[in-house]
């Protein structure tokens, strides 16, 4: 059965390629730092399951040391110039979009084909990670298409991928680091402590106020933890279930679903949700690393108010 581990082997190969390419990039004065960083990540993808917990912990500390000591740089490795790119795009036209669309198309059609045909019963692909695996398949097909059609230099995809990876830098592993932090928070009992504090300050009898505090608690805790998934069980245990559902008789489906969505408003406003808010700023080469968050706050706040109203009206008045 094709599962996530196949994809890890592929990702390890990509990062090993980035490591070699970045280490050879003489335009980058910190090329060895970049090479070591991507090399460690390749090691994690390939051998993470054999290193043991302590071994992985040491690997994490090494990644952090490289980033924390500012040993990562960005080179100006030779790619095509913008004039050359203009000439290429004039020549190739809209067909250039096709390889880029192969990836989402493969993931989209592939997922539907897998879920709604007997393919699902063949056990070929792990059903838990179908779309991610098909994303990998799409990337391979798209890369093969590029080779056959554009005939780039043999190592150009690795060099160009390495160029993009260097431009993202440490932000690329931040989401995974934050996920690891979440595991530590859970082990140290941070969630249960906050839940106990929240339930201690809840007023009884005023439904609207309790709804507001539930939603704001979801937002605040989501902003601290970086995702609403960590916040939901805590806020449900502190306010959602004992106060809103059991004491005040609210509709549990509304409290659950819209409570989570109130948390998502917090996800839009926190740097802790790095993969959504910090990585794109790096990927789009924004000067302000909080630029995406600033663009999202004016959507998140009115939407939070909308969620509070939906919680109150649909949860208690319908």
């Amino acid at each position, binding site marked *: 059965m094709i599962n996530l581990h196949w*994809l890890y082997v592929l*990702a390890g190969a990509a990062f090993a390629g980035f490591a070699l390419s970045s280490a050879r990039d003489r335009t980058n004065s910190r090329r060895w730092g970049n090479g070591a960083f991507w090399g460690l*990540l390749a090691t*994690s993808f390939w051998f993470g*399951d054999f*290193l043991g917990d*302590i071994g*992985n*912990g*040491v690997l*994490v500390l090494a990644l*952090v040391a490289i*980033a924390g000591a500012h040993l990562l740089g960005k080179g100006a490795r030779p*790619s095509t110039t*913008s004039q050359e*790119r*203009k000439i290429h*795009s004039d020549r190739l*036209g809209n067909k250039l*979009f096709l390889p880029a669309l192969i*990836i989402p198309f493969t993931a989209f059609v592939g997922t539907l084909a897998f879920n709604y045909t007997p393919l699902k019963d063949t056990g070929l692909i792990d059903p838990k990670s179908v779309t991610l695996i098909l994303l990998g398949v799409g*990337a391979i097909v798209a890369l093969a298409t*590029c080779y056959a059609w554009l005939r*780039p230099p043999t190592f*150009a*995809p690795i*060099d*160009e*991928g390495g160029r*993009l*990876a260097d431009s993202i830098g*440490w932000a690329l592993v931040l989401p*995974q680091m934050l*996920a690891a*932090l979440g*595991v*530590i928070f859970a082990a*140290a009992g941070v969630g249960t402590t*906050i839940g106990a504090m929240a339930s201690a300050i809840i007023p009884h009898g005023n439904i609207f106020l309790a709804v507001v505090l539930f939603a704001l608690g979801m937002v605040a805790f989501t902003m*601290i933890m970086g995702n609403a998934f960590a916040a*939901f069980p805590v806020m*449900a245990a502190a306010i959602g279930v004992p106060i809103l559902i059991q004491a005040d008789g609210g509709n549990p*489906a509304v409290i*659950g679903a*819209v409570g*989570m*969505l109130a948390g998502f408003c917090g996800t839009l406003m926190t740097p802790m949700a*790095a*993969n959504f808010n910090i990585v794109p700023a790096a*990927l*789009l080469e924004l*000067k302000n690393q909080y*630029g*995406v968050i*600033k*663009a*999202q706050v004016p959507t998140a706040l*009115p*939407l939070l108010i909308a969620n509070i109203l*939906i919680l109150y009206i649909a949860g208690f008045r319908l």
Partner: protein
Amino acid sequence: MNYLPLLGIALVVLGFALRFNPLLVVAVAAIVTGLLGHMPFLKVLGTLGHGFNENRYVTITYIVLPVIGILERYGLQQQARALIRGMKRATTGRLLIVYLGLRQILAALGLTTVAGHAQTVRPLVAPMAVAAAEKQHGELDEATTERVKAMSAATDNVGVFFGEDIFLAIASILLIQGSLKSFGIELTPFQLSVWAIPTAICAFLIHGGRLLWLDRTLSSLPRSGGEGDRSAQLSGGGAEAATGPSTIRSAADGSPPHPRFRGDREELL
């Protein structure tokens, strides 16, 4: 109750505020939190390593970088701009509204990873949005380019966040179901996902309204030459109109605007 591990949260907030390297901040906060939670150092290190290893799938999307990189080498972003310049009625706001709707619908079908910041925003959506803004406004200063790019990323996030819960088998719906079940409250995924629809509609209206407002502010900026489409005047976004302009403008406060020549920007995005 041991309140000391909460200091780890304070460390994260402080570290981000003081702009230390975020990886360093997170690692220090993790170790301090673990130690304050009475875990021995090696146990903390092992938990951190285990958590990192178990969450490798979070970083998997970057396997698309070689494909995106090679297509950029052959002018993908230039072509994305050329396509938009050829569309008479395309504006930044309308383009991003279409993307918002598409992303919500795809996410509602459970297809959250078919699009994203690496897969679609950097190679396609952001260059198209910038090209459409150039049509409306002529050459853009750096602050405006940043604002348009940031809105492209924001639109992707809003679309996926407020579409995915309509899908029955998404992780967050299963998490809600599991959490409530532990309190003896039995719900089906369908009962939950139905209640994601009102918020999805609100998200489309609020963010869509802001995008129309973005069009309006773009066409009211002083033009700096270049060919453009004056028909881009659109009415503002209802309730958003009151808060729109000041907050959008604040997104550009990070760096003083200064003009940049064209070739430079082509290389950057």
